[in-house]
């Protein structure tokens, strides 16, 4: 039997090589004709977010993505400029009054989105909301330092503190403490009313948030671009692909593995800073790490350069002490307490009565991946000195609960300080209710006293001495073990101008610069 063409001699003109090629060419032309729509309009900046904002409650901390949207809509009494320096924002002038009071003169032309001018009573109203547990404000505990808010005249307030506080101005610049309109009443997450450069236009839950220019914004000529569309890209690879294909103009948290590619790409650029950090927390109430010598042994056994290489793709540097953000505090010699020294680690193990090492479990999370990679490197490093580590990897939600309840021996953590001031380490080493960001059960009167002294001292030289002493105390008591500073970058189109990554711990304040950003 000879083979015939087609079934039972049926000619098949519709499937042949030429037909397929023609079809492909036609499809390409059709799609090619639409090329360029991805670049988008000049009057809209498209920003890629890591998550869709869970909500836009002005006083709650629901992550950096919500923070970006909040910074478009709201403004506080103070803020930061692109160099990370505090500046008056809704306040036109700001003067300390003695050691425990600050006086703020409000701008004449500052208005809320409901048309009402920003008045002294709005400031008092907002601070009242933050202090009230009912509004679940992120800074509620911090704002307990405010004794009272005096309305000096309709445009002037005097905030009186219970004690002097060096970091207090930073609280007023936080994007979790924007000034809210008293006339608008209780904040409504669905209809946020702020005094920022943009008003909420639409929210497509899970997809995108759009804001548009507020015509009565107090800075003349700002914002420079009429609209911003914040688009959620939960998959970091797709977020990078969207940047490369021109779908988005700027993205927050450029993944470390993509940084080389963005730097090499002639169409793109990136702006990075070293701000967030990785560290280890311990269960100091039960298990092996109740012994401070074992915590110290871990500190000497970790090879921080390996973590930088593996988890941050070389984009970071070792953290050999407490995570003091920003100069001059981070540069002091005392802030270099432990380096990779396996012999020292073994010596400490012997002193602790574990000459042959011991077994323990390290809690970490599978997402973000860098937490898992960090745990794997620590596991290897500790094996070199005889500490056998078993990894307990869970998803994020489980990890937080296990951390809060102390169901771990030691764990990998990563975050960023609230502001560029060493007082921000209080969250991680000060006494307080149990939380996954700090070591379970750890409490030290000596460290707490130093933290309080550092916070209430206003003279910078004296503060530096106090924070040096705190480093020594932290080395002796080892509340946490620092691992690395990691780089945090925004990736953007080369033609995007005005967007700046704010330095250090302020990196998530960068969306303030959206009001200066234009597509050229």
């Amino acid at each position, binding site marked *: 039997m000879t083979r015939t063409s087609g*079934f039972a001699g049926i000619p098949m003109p519709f499937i042949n090589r030429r037909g397929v090629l023609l079809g492909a060419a036609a499809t390409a032309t059709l799609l090619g004709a639409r090329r360029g729509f991805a670049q988008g309009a000049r009057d809209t900046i498209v920003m890629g977010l890591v998550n869709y904002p869970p*909500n836009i409650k002005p006083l709650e901390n629901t992550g950096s993505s919500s923070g970006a949207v909040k910074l478009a809509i709201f403004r506080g009494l103070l803020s930061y400029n692109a160099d990370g320096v505090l500046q008056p924002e809704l306040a036109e002038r700001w003067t300390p009054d003695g050691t425990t009071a600050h006086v703020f003169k409000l701008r004449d032309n500052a208005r809320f989105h409901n048309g009402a001018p920003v008045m002294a009573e709005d400031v008092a109203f907002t601070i009242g909301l933050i202090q009230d547990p009912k509004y*679940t404000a992120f800074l509620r505990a911090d704002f307990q330092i405010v004794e009272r808010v005096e309305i000096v005249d309709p445009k002037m307030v005097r905030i009186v503190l219970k004690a002097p506080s060096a970091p207090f101005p930073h609280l007023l610049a936080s994007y979790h403490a924007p000034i809210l309109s008293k006339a608008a009443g209780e904040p409504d997450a669905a209809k946020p009313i702020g005094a920022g450069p943009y008003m909420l236009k639409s929210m497509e839950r899970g997809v995108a948030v759009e804001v548009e220019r507020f015509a009565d914004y107090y800075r003349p000529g700002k914002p420079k671009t009429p609209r911003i569309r914040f688009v959620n890209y939960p*998959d970091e690879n797709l977020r990078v692909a969207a940047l490369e294909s021109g779908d988005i103009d700027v993205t927050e948290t450029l993944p470390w593995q993509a940084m080389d590619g963005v730097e090499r790409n002639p169409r793109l650029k990136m702006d990075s800073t070293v701000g967030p950090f990785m560290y280890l927390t311990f269960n100091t109430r039960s298990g092996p790490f109740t012994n401070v010598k074992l915590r110290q042994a871990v500190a000497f056994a970790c090879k921080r350069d390996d973590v930088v290489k593996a988890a941050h793709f070389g984009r970071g540097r070792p953290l050999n002490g407490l995570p003091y953000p920003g100069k001059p505090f981070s540069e002091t010699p005392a802030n270099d307490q432990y380096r990779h020294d396996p012999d020292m680690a073994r010596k400490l193990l012997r002193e602790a009565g574990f000459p042959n090492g011991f077994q323990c479990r390290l809690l970490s999370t599978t997402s973000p991946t860098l937490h898992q990679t960090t745990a794997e490197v620590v596991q290897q490093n500790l094996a070199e000195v005889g500490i056998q580590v078993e990894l307990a990897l869970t998803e994020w*939600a489980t990890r*937080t*609960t296990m951390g809060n309840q102390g169901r771990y021996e030691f764990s990998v953590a990563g975050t960023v300080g609230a502001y560029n001031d060493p007082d921000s380490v209080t969250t991680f080493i000060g006494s307080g209710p149990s939380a996954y960001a700090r070591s379970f059960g750890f409490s030290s009167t000596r460290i707490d006293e130093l933290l309080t002294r550092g916070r209430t001292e206003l003279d910078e030289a004296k503060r530096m001495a106090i924070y040096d002493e705190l480093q020594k105390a932290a080395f002796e008591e080892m509340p946490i073990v620092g691992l690395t500073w990691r780089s945090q970058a925004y990736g953007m189109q080369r033609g995007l101008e005005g967007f700046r990554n704010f330095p250090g711990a302020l990196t998530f304040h960068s969306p303030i610069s959206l009001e200066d950003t234009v597509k050229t």
Partner: protein
Amino acid sequence: MSWFLKRIGLSILLVWIVASIVFLAIHFVPGDPAELLLSTSGFAPDPVAVEELRRRLGLDQPVLVQYVNDFQRLLSGDLGRSMKDDSPIIDAIARRLPRTLELIVAAGLMGILIGVPAGTYAAIRRGGLFDRVASALSALGLAVPVFVMGTLIVLLFAQTLRWVPAGGYVAFDRDPWQHLTMLAMPALTIGLHLAPVVFRVTRAAVLDVTSRDYVRTARAKGVGPPRVLVHHVVRNALMPVVTVVGLQLGGLLGGTVLVEFVFNWPGLSGLLVESVSSRDYPEVVAIVLTISILFVGLNLVIDLLYGALDPRVRRR
């Protein structure tokens, strides 16, 4: 009549059991919605705020009380509100379910459009070059996971050729063309995974049918070859294809997660994953309830149809 009632009763029982299992599972897995919501950024949340939020969300009640309250609410037809932003969950489902269905339908169409002609052609040129190449490709298509396929498609069409956006979603009424372009990539990804299955079933079925007597008879009485192929072979071979495609598409209802994630397609599976990871209890229960009602409902309709068409089924 009692047979029909029994079927319906069983279906309702099944949905209730599924919803209860999911409710208990999500409550007993570690992770607290209030804590998670207030600590998204890796900071330790203020415990007073966490307590207040837990109280407001009713999480301070014993699980059994929460169960009774939630199911009373569900029985009255109210799916509840999201713990994240207090928005009605029914709205989110009403918005997301059609997108997943649209994706499944488009993927099914692509799978059929690729699989049926290729399978037919491979069968009638059995052992030929096309057959061998297509069979090898279909093995490859089945073996490559959807997220790898998806990533490769993004790399080729969005990053290298820059023909289409890398993913995302635009509503049809906002820009129909852009909507379809954005639908094309995820649909193609699932379609390419589906096509090998369709290809194989079609190929086997066509081979089977071509040797049937009625095909020989048709040819013997002088029917033209194209007509034999279309009317006698393919039409009869399509029965198993339709069955298989139907089964595959049903399975996709909760299974488009990876593709939705890779392409940022805001469908129902993606919402389910997001609510599980943020422990948005009412949202998880509502979505699983919706999916199980669809599944069980579909099966019920088929069961009832069988029963109505064939009285023997009712006696079994």
